[in-house]
């Protein structure tokens, strides 16, 4: 009997563990370790952040779902990995610390035959002084609780506006190396939409600030969409929307410090500035969750398994090379750790070989460039793919049998620009492949036949339907496995 342990129950981890159980049945043991008691459909958090949904709408309790599926659920955070076993045994194991209130603080060793690291990101608010809702001066929409708080602050702001006050709103990224520009994009335009619906739009100056070198980069170097016989850059469409909705922009920015009502930043050209605000949501940079790894003799071998940013090394080409030498083949395909063949990392937890966007820095040497996004669709596909490989390896395969490179995979994304059954809009787009392949698609890096985008009510309907669909799937309701990642 094999024991498969999955650390993390986000989009990628939950996908992996549920398919593992479905395919392995009761013959093998499937264990999930996550510090959270609830699953969160993160793409809808921006709607919680503007009061269009509540935390209850975007989360559900994990325990009953896992119990029904026969998955061993440990509400705990993973602390360390021991891939060679310990003093008394060669059996690999992880150590966990319970966050379950009934056992809070208790530690335990969990043995494994196969391990998936799907721990996702640490929201690194600490990387920028004054960033974040806990002790900082900005709100967040990264978690359902953060988004609930963001909406409360937004409502207070709107009360001030109703009394005649003109306010400044600043939304974007809170560090030069952030990803997730898409979430900030959704939030800024949902706020703009809500203010218009409330008749308060003229009481707000709304500004975007991000680390992108051009609007529409989104961490993937932008994309091109066919329009009127042309392949038009996402820069054109992004700037168009900003111009249309009277949202100004500051780009190529690394936010260095946030004080009460002020965000200090440095630009790619070395200039510095201060942007005042009455309300601000700035995405934090991501890092690994801080897992450690130890050899059999107890010595620290964290840097064998993990990159300096805390994300796990997989089958990517990590050879340092300039942007001009990057290739699609640098990107991982099986997500297997190169040193320990029974360890995999999926979703945001794997270490990318390099950025997707071109690296840039200011004359002071400050890196100001988006880091690679791993959105829901790639994260889910990678989780399922690794589950398939592990099942085959349990059944005798020597190597992973399935692959899912982001350079051979597309992403379908829907970015809300305002919620409303008949007056909402969203940008529905696909990009193929996620990581551009300039050898296969010279010039633009992507297949124009499978890369498209448009804004409209249809996109909003799609996003709302996907909300319900993926919650249905995650709750393992009838037909869940038929819904594609």
């Amino acid at each position: 009997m094999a024991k498969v342990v999955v650390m993390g129950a986000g989009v990628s981890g939950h996908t992996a563990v549920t398919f593992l159980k479905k395919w392995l049945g009761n013959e093998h043991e499937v264990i999930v370790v996550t510090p959270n008691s609830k699953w969160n459909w993160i793409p809808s958090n921006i709607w919680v952040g503007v009061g269009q949904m509540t935390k209850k709408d975007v989360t559900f309790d994990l325990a009953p779902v896992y119990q029904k599926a026969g998955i061993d659920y440990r509400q705990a955070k993973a602390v360390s990995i021991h891939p060679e076993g310990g003093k008394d045994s060669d059996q690999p194991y992880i150590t966990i610390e319970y966050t379950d209130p009934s056992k809070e603080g208790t530690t335990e060793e969990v043995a494994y035959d196969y391990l998936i690291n799907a721990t996702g990101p640490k929201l690194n608010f600490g990387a920028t002084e004054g960033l974040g809702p806990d002790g900082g001066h900005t709100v967040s929409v990264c978690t359902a609780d953060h988004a609930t708080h963001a909406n409360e602050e937004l409502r207070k702001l709107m009360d001030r506006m109703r009394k005649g006050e003109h306010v400044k709103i600043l939304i974007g990224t809170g560090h030069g190396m952030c990803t997730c520009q898409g979430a900030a994009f959704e939030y800024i335009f949902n706020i703009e939409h809500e203010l218009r619906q409330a008749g308060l739009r003229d009481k707000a100056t709304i500004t975007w600030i991000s680390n992108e070198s051009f609007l529409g980069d989104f961490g993937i170097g932008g994309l091109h969409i066919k329009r009127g016989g042309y392949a038009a850059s996402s820069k054109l469409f992004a700037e168009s929307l900003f111009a249309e909705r009277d949202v100004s922009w500051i780009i190529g920015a690394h936010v260095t410090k946030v004080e009460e009502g002020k965000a200090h930043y440095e630009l790619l050209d070395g200039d510095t500035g201060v942007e005042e605000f009455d309300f601000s949501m700035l995405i934090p940079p991501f890092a690994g969750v801080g897992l450690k790894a130890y050899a059999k003799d107890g010595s620290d071998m964290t840097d064998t398994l993990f990159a300096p940013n805390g994300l796990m090394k997989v089958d990517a080409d990590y050879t340092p090379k300039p942007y001009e030498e990057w290739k699609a083949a640098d990107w991982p395909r099986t997500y297997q750790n190169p040193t320990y063949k029974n360890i995999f990392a999926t979703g945001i937890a794997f270490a990318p070989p390099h950025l997707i966007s071109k690296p840039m820095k200011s004359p002071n040497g400050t890196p100001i460039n988006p880091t690679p996004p791993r959105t829901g669709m790639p994260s889910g596909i990678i989780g399922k793919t690794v589950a398939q490989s592990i099942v085959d390896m349990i059944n005798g395969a020597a190597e992973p049998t399935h692959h899912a490179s982001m350079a051979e995979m597309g992403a379908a994304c829907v970015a809300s620009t305002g919620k409303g059954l008949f007056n909402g809009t969203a940008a529905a787009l696909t990009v193929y492949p996620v990581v551009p392949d300039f050898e296969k698609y010279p010039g633009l890096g992507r297949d124009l036949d499978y890369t498209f985008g448009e804004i409209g009510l249809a996109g909003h309907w799609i996003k709302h339907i996907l909300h319900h669909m993926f919650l249905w799937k995650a709750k393992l309701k009838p037909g869940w496995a038929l819904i594609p990642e």
Partner: protein
Amino acid sequence: MAENKHTEHVHHIDPYSPEFETMVPTGMVKFFRTCVIWQFIRFVIINIKMLVVVQKSHH
């Protein structure tokens, strides 16, 4: 005085500002964005396109 219904919704744009240098939708484009009948047709087409990309992405 000539009226320009195509761009009255972007009256906030100042000449030679960054917003002046990009493209903005005309009133017709904005209308079709929330025209229910047209958007229902787009809903069907977008879903088909997305499903094709999803299918192409699963190996």
